[in-house]
């Protein structure tokens, strides 16, 4: 780093979605919901009424100090406030809208604070580390978010130095004491819709069997039905209440079969390809069990579900381990800090050294292989991962993004995440490191990076924009809704009272926020208006999205010709980019301990076949070569093609922040809609084509919501 070293950079627009600068003045400014308790220091009475008005129920202001937000141009004067829930920078004259109680731009949830630095002159101290007291009055503090955001505030001189010191110490203390409690309880929100009860969520939350049934119909999965066997979470707490099983399998058989899988996570349908093949996911076989013949038949019938050819995919094969992902993410964060020790000319190897991009590409590669298997080869694929809660979700969502144009719409993507991650029981709380448990691994963030790569490579195929991904990325660190605050659907489904008792178990002796305010059970992360204003939400739409890739036109609904009659019940294993035949699906028939040993899989052998392409895959000859179906994306995953998500990871380095080609397309889009608007005004009668061509962002928004 040659000449940036000495100052930390001084410029840049933030990469956060630009907020609306002027909030409309709200009629009332009274501190309606602030609980002014005795804990409030007398000096905080000096705070303007409107500063305090943004407080949430149960929120207490611990300290505040006037300051100037740096790193942005122009520098923004305002107030740095530390409460028991978050750190907020409130610009002068900015008023928090009641509709968006959390600001994506100015709020840092306490638990999001990854590093805190206090600067005075040339000395620089890292706080938040045990035994690192603040020995001087800070001139400036830098808050590094775990979501790669940076808040840099310079305090004003002139008699207010003690306040600067107090607010800094308050942040350190609040974060240390409060993080776990608050994180688990969530920031209580008073959302108007919450009390009315019957609010329709923006995205089907898949908590009712109707949602599942509707989704099943949409996919055209005729051979499948919604099973209600887990309605009371007695099969597995990590499974959703409802899931899809083969139509002819009875619930008793389901129960029988699921018992032989790790944590009761038996095979369930993820996605039905209109060509007839299915994508299933399941946990590892529970090797210690001793199934009888009936059980094995049930397991096999569920895995095969009417297909002669089934490909078993060992999900974790060739993918990083959870610990790898965590380590890579830590390294990436270290590298992307503004004072990263990597020199400019060593940047590339430092980036390579994080392994993060390597992991991204291996995920993409595997997903692309599997989507070819499912769509072009029309084979049913079973994703098998021991826990079935991490990489299975990642792969199955990526495969669907690659193969189903519908999943690339805003609504489609949100329901995909809701289904494959939230409902499927991805342990968000643990994986995002909120509980402080050792099993932190940001698999979901890895997934978002993969999606971003796809967005880069296929800019016209996705309805959502990079900003949307960024918003989703940042929401993972905002403890406002239950979506990312629970490990299992069971915990998420618990209501009010039960929930409170749970926290008590978790953190005995902590004071509880009032029950009525604590749960935002009806809100999900998809309620974007909690955190983003409508202008920001408009930016979720990709201006380059090509409506020609509309969901209906991509594939004929049923293509029976795809189904090539093969030898009965052939079972294959897909591993290391090649297929090998398996003798049987279940490991128990001959040798009970088969699955435990990976050597049960045949060594990778070249199977003779006519087609050279198939030799690459080790495909049996009778499968034949199929052309790539339309709508399938084959991502590039080579070194030069996998890129760093700079707008996300380099947000803390203001000198590197710059939107590049993005404005070109959106600028044109603006001009286009402006011209269309003009034309529309001038022409009294409009032909229907003109209407359909008009792509006003507002119309798109209202359609998708």
């Amino acid at each position, binding site marked *: 780093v*040659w*000449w940036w070293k000495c100052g930390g950079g001084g*410029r*840049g627009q933030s990469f956060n979605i630009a907020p609306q600068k002027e909030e409309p003045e709200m009629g009332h400014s009274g501190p309606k919901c602030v609980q002014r308790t005795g804990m409030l220091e007398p000096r905080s009475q000096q705070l303007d009424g409107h500063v305090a008005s943004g407080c949430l129920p149960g929120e207490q202001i611990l300290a505040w100090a006037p300051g100037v937000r740096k790193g942005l141009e122009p520098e923004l004067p305002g107030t740095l406030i530390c409460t028991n829930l978050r750190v907020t920078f409130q610009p002068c004259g900015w008023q928090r809208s009641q509709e968006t109680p959390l600001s994506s731009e100015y709020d840092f949830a306490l638990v999001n604070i990854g*590093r805190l630095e206090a600067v005075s002159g040339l000395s620089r101290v890292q706080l938040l*580390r045990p035994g690192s007291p603040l020995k001087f009055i800070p001139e400036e503090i830098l808050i590094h978010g775990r979501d790669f955001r940076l808040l840099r505030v310079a305090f004003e001189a002139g008699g207010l130095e003690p306040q600067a010191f107090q607010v800094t110490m308050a942040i350190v203390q609040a*974060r240390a004491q409060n*993080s776990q409690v608050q994180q688990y309880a969530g920031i209580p929100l008073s959302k108007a819709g919450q009390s009315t009860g019957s609010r329709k969520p923006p995205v089907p939350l898949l908590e009712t069997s109707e949602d599942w049934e509707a989704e099943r119909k949409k996919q055209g999965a005729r051979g499948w039905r919604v099973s209600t066997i887990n309605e009371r979470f007695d099969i597995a707490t990590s499974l959703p209440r409802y899931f899809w099983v083969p139509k002819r399998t009875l619930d008793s058989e389901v129960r029988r079969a699921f018992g032989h899988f790790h944590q009761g996570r038996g095979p369930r349908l993820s996605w039905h390809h209109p060509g007839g093949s299915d994508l299933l996911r399941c946990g590892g076989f529970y090797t210690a069990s001793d199934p009888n013949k009936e059980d094995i038949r049930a397991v096999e019938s569920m895995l095969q579900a009417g297909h002669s050819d089934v490909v078993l995919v060992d999900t974790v094969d060739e993918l990083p381990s959870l610990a*790898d992902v965590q380590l890579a993410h*830590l*390294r990436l964060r*270290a590298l992307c800090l503004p004072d990263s020790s990597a*020199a*400019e*000319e*060593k*940047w*590339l190897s430092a980036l*390579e*050294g994080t392994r993060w991009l*390597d992991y991204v*590409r*291996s995920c993409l*590669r595997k997903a*692309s292989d599997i989507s070819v298997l499912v769509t072009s080869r029309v084979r049913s694929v079973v994703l098998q991962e021991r826990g079935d809660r991490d990489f299975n979700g990642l792969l199955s969502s990526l495969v669907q993004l690659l193969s189903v144009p519908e999943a690339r719409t805003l609504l489609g993507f949100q329901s995909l995440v809701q289904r494959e991650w939230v409902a499927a029981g991805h342990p968000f709380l643990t994986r995002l*490191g909120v509980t*402080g448990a050792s099993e932190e691994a940001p698999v979901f963030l890895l997934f978002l990076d993969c999606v971003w790569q796809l967005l880069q*490579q*296929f*800019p*016209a195929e996705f309805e959502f924009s990079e900003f949307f991904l960024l918003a989703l990325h940042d929401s993972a660190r905002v403890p406002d809704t239950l979506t990312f605050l629970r490990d299992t659907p069971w915990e998420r489904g618990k209501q009010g009272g039960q929930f409170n008792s749970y926290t008590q178990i978790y953190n005995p002796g902590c004071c509880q926020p009032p029950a009525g305010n604590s749960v935002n059970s009806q809100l999900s992360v998809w309620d974007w208006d909690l955190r983003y204003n409508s202008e920001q939400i408009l930016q979720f739409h990709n201006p*380059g999205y*090509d409506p020609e890739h509309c969901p209906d036109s991509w594939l004929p609904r049923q293509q029976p010709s795809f189904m090539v009659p093969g030898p009965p019940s052939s079972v294959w294993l897909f591993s290391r*980019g090649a297929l090998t035949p398996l003798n049987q699906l279940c490991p128990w028939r001959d040798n009970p301990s088969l699955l435990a040993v990976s050597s049960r899989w045949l060594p990778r052998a070249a199977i003779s076949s006519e087609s*050279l392409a198939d030799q*690459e895959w080790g495909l049996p000859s009778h499968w034949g*070569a199929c052309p790539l179906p339309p709508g399938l*994306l084959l*991502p*590039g*995953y*080579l*070194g030069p*093609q996998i890129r*760093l998500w*700079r707008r996300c990871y*380099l947000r803390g380095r203001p*000198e*590197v922040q710059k939107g*590049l*080609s993005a404005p*070109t*397309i959106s*600028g*044109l889009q603006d*001009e*286009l809609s*402006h011209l*269309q608007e*003009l034309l529309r005004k001038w022409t009294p009668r409009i032909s229907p084509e003109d209407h359909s061509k008009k792509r006003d962002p507002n119309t798109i928004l209202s359609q998708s919501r």
Partner: protein
Amino acid sequence: MLGKGVVGGGGGTKAPKPSFVSYVRPEEIHTNEKEVTEKEVTLHLLPGEQLLCEASTVLKYVQEDSCQRGIYGKLVCTDFKIAFLGDDDSALDNDETQFKNKVIGENDITLHCVDQIYGVFDEKKKTLFGQLKKYPEKLIIHCKDLRVFHFCLRYTKEEEVKRIVSGIIHHTQAPKLLKRLFLFSYAAAAQNHAATDPRNHTVMFDTLKDWCWELERTKGSVKYKAVSVNEGYKVCERLPAYFVVPTPLPEEDLSRFQGHGIPLWCWSCHNGCALLKMSALPKKEQDDGLSQMQKSFLDGIYKTIHRPPYEIVKTEDLSSNFLSLQDIQTAYSKFKQLFLIDNSTEFWDTDIKWFSLLESSSWLDIIRRCLKKAIEITECLEAQNVNVLLLEENASDLCCLVSSLVQVMMDPHCRTRIGFQSLVQKEWIMGGHSFLDRCNHLRQSDKEEVPVFLLFLDCVWQLVHQHPPAFDFTETYLTVLSDSLYIPIFSTFFFNSPHQKDNVHQRQLSLPLTQSKSSPKRGFFREETDHLIKNLLGKRISKLINSSDELHDNLREFYDSWHSKPTDYHGLLLPHIEGPEIKVWAQRYLRWIPEAQILGGGRAATVSKLLEMMEEVERLQEKIDARPHGQGALLAEAPLLLRGSARLSALFPFALLQRHPSKPVLPTSGWKALGDEEDLAKREDEFVDLGDV
């Protein structure tokens, strides 16, 4: 609102053709329909092109897979190109002909484009040169535009193998005389439409008028004058016939040291500061009298240009404090190896270490240093109001690079296509960059081959990539321009100096080639001291960076403050030069690697989307313009060029690649072996302990 002109460069991608200034225009030799119908493919020769040798039943491997599939055909070598004519012509479809290069077919390699030739003997790859005792069974040709061809000669008659291999080697590798360049046979045979094309407004700077025009344009005419003292190259063969010098400079000084030591005007800034360049005076050993003379001469010159009305002059010595040509040569030869892929397996093997390999070539770092130097000079001109004098031994390599980069950054006119072409004409062609030697067109000295011009294009590409709306042209234009360096039907890039070109034309090619050109440049390449130079240079540079803090503070402030303001695309333009911002020019370097293609996506998709939207904007604008004339005048919808065409690949618009759906295996197992965790241990606990607080 984005005006038409700003993004208009997108149009440049529509019709890829050699768009650089051509003195002689390529003619369309063949029509596409003919080619499709004819069973036997015939060789199409340009006017003046002669067939030298040929071989039949040669197998050209399909490069994308390692399974040795291929097409049979005829391999021919003419005095212009090596061409492969496939027997099976069915691969040609309509889409492909749409993007066809008018001169160079898909399987054509111009002789100047050949970089290395390898032969495979019993599975062993060897470089081929000189007289061969044994003839290879496989021929691998690496091209300078980074294509790789594999030809199998196993099924070819021995006679023919001998003839074709030695023919190819001789015609691509043996030193050649200037007069033997194909350029001249072509020029003699083809009709010469020298620069009469009315659309062509590129300023050629070969008349006094052109220089005066440029002086007027930049408002430099107050302090600088165009002189014609070198008309007929009486003063110096290195300099162009006309150039610009400070007004008070006496004319007799110009001829004193054959144009050395004279500050030549490059460009004037809006505030009156000028960018000047000067070639250093020749160093004469043990001649005190002469060096005394030189000294007093230089003092006189400096006195002239230091006096008002001239601003203070800051001298930038590019030959001692900056990159050496050898650095550039070494870096590029390492860098290009990353893209010259013999087979897929090799590619996948190196892919895993892509970033570190890229970094170790230090090509990107060289780009960064060039950009940084240009920013420094821009800062002097723009913020400090001083004149900058670039000094180099011959003022024809890094001087050209730095001065034209500065002009691209500071002068929006240079970001239009015509302006850019005029810039290249002014700084590179008239600036006397020795294209002949630097591209090694005559194969006379590999040591002189340094891709300085390509480095310049790559630097410009970084700017185009970072600020696309600021440029009238696209990256495709730059790629095509870089390709035309090796197509000897344009005379632009085939001479060492304007004198050489004019002379050769005047004397009907009858001159024997003068060797004098290479001697003054010898200083760059002293073999025995190569490693010394490199080490010393490294140390010197690091010292430089650490010292002169004040300079760097100024620079940083200038850089930061520019980047903190919204970008004015019609004003000063600075690149980002941080580590993550310098990128690989993927279109040029990766386009021939099938594995690197993204079907239906990538940059091609963005560009096509842009074009589509621009067309729609234009259509609507026309509609609005047409309104007062009548309601019913609805224009017919223009057929969109790209919509519905086959899936675009990164090869677009150079070819449409048909790629097999199969995928090779990526050895990801390499991870485990690659990394050690300990270097991160420190950083790691910094973060891990956060959770436990």
